[in-house]
């Protein structure tokens, strides 16, 4: 690594961190938004550069990962930042989504957050992104816990800022706080047990020491606590209870950011710990019993999430329950430990973030113009807001996985991997889930296009700066569906690195 790029890893967290600290001081008026835009944009640039660099190096000499010793203290005694292809891909995704949603939310934040709170909103916003990015690039197990709590605490505050629009945001935030803290505490217990077993906190070092020691009760207990804690954080059925209320009552910008990034980072933690820390030499990372339990949870998530989505009274809740189902897809792919399923899982993380982020931004536009996302108030939306409802339909098609959309590519890889690894039942569930996705997407189509226009008054015009991110995100999902070569390449190499066992 040459001297120009050697500082980049630490900049990924440093840029939004500095922005978050500056925001309460200089973030009055429009400056908070500008600051957030500049910092998330810079973080996207840095992580995108690293992604390209790591991908290029990995093609030459696989497996390639950047290691950055914080403060010059070498691992395993110092804290190490370790960026492999998966970290870089998701860091680009998280900071890019942060940038898009920031671009979207100037007027939305003006609309939903009182004037004297906005600079604190932007501060929490940037600190949440700092925490999420930090989890993705750190190579230290305890660091994961601390950064997880940084992102979680700020996200609780961000959700609670939705109280101006809906007072249920407070109870939703409190619920999430209680469940999220229990989940994070489970992860803390798991890290403690791993430290007791191996005497180190560096993930690569823990893995190396676990390979030498026989698997005993301490390791199995640590893995059980870790899986439970991570499942809570990624909202895997039946631990998803905090999610729908939080997504539907949070300010619209926050809902979009959470749906696109926060649960994905939870899934990343799961992948990282299962495959880079617990993976046993030569064998599968999870036992058959583990796969059975997680498989049942994923199957239930897909069926229950899709069915619930079809019964929700508002678009926000529909999207939230559909996220429950989509998380089932992503986790089922990583569970079986097959290269194609893992590729599909990583692809689905990226595509779902783009699509669901775009859809929540559409819901944000509806809140901005109609003041509600209740489906009965959306009657005749196809005539009243043709662009926005068109975008929602495009996003819905992507969630079903129609050929030509990105959702098709990821589901294709998921199915291929699940069948090749001998799990036809799980593959069947993925297919059933697609049919159910068609049902809840149809509900919106029916309301928006087949009913006479409602009389809920429209406020404001359609602001271009709000629609631009929607166009970019959904356009990216279509583009990647038609030209998937490059992204499949990256996801496949990332899956290879992950299954190779070294972080």
């Amino acid at each position, binding site marked *: 690594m040459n001297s120009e790029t050697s500082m980049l890893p630490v900049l990924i967290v440093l840029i939004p961190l500095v922005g978050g600290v500056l925001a309460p001081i200089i973030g009055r008026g429009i400056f908070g938004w500008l600051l957030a835009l500049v910092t998330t944009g810079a973080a996207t640039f840095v992580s995108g550069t690293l992604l390209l660099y790591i991908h290029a190096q990995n093609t030459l000499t696989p497996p390639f990962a950047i290691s950055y010793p914080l403060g010059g203290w070498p691992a395993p005694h110092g804290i190490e930042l370790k960026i492999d292809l998966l970290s870089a891909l998701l860091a680009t995704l998280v900071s890019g989504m942060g940038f898009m949603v920031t671009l979207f939310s100037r007027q939305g934040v003006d609309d939903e957050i009182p004037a004297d709170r906005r600079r604190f909103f932007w501060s929490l916003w940037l600190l949440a992104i700092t925490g999420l990015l930090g989890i993705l690039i750190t190579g230290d197990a305890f660091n994961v816990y601390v950064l997880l709590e940084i992102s979680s605490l700020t996200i609780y505050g961000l959700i*609670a800022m939705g109280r101006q629009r809906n007072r249920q945001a407070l*109870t939703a935030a409190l619920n999430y*706080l209680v469940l999220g803290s229990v989940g994070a505490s489970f992860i803390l217990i798991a890290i403690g047990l791993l430290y007791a077993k191996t005497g180190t906190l560096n993930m690569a070092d823990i893995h190396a020491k676990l390979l030498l020691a026989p698997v005993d009760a301490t390791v199995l207990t640590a893995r059980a606590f870790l899986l439970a804690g991570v499942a809570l954080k990624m909202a895997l059925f039946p631990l998803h209870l905090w999610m729908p209320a939080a997504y539907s009552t949070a300010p619209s910008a926050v809902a979009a950011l959470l749906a696109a990034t926060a649960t994905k980072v939870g899934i990343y933690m799961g992948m990282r710990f299962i495959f880079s820390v617990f993976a046993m030499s030569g064998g599968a990372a999870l036992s058959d019993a583990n796969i059975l339990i997680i498989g049942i949870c994923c199957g239930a998530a897909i069926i229950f999430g899709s069915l619930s989505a079809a019964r929700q009274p508002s678009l926000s809740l529909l999207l939230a329950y559909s996220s429950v189902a989509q998380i089932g897809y992503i986790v089922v792919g990583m569970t079986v430990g097959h290269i194609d399923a893992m590729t599909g899982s990583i692809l689905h993380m990226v595509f779902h973030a783009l699509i669901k982020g775009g859809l929540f931004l559409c819901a944000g536009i509806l809140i901005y113009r109609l003041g509600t996302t209740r489906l009965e108030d959306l009657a005749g939306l196809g005539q009243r807001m043709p662009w926005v409802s068109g975008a929602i339909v495009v996003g819905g098609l992507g969630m079903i996985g129609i050929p030509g959309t990105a959702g098709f590519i990821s589901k294709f890889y998921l199915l291929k991997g699940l069948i090749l690894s001998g799990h036809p039942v799980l593959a069947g569930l993925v297919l059933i889930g697609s049919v159910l996705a068609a049902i809840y997407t149809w509900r919106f189509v029916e309301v928006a296009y087949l009913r006479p226009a409602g009389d809920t008054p429209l406020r404001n015009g359609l602001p271009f700066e709000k629609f631009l991110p929607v166009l970019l995100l959904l356009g990216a999902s279509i583009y990647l569906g038609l030209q998937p070569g490059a992204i499949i390449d990256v996801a496949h190499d990332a899956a290879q690195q992950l299954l190779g066992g070294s972080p």
Partner: protein
Amino acid sequence: MSLFETFNSIAFVVIMMLGLYTLIARQNLVKKTLGLGLFQTGIFLMYITLGVRDGGVAPILQEGAPLTYTNPLPHVLILTAIVVSLSTMAVALALIIGVREEYGTIEADEIATIDRADAEEGA
């Protein structure tokens, strides 16, 4: 495993479970938060016990001292976790103040009743 370790290992599980029970069984939001605090305190005890060695002393290099030291790293780690727990508690209490302002109660079941009534009114 020394007596101290055995006792602590049992104690931290008991404390954690008491906290978890309070968290689940109590309707009062402040009591729920206290349960969460108790739950996390149990984990602190686990970490502190991890660092202890029989006959160990504080890890300060001095002349003529015994060679067994307690491991300071878990203690440092748990210091961070204590700060996190404190911040979580502060955020939770701030949210509960907001809930009290909006709903006029801090009993979870009463809040659920109010929310249900709101939903029916809106429908």
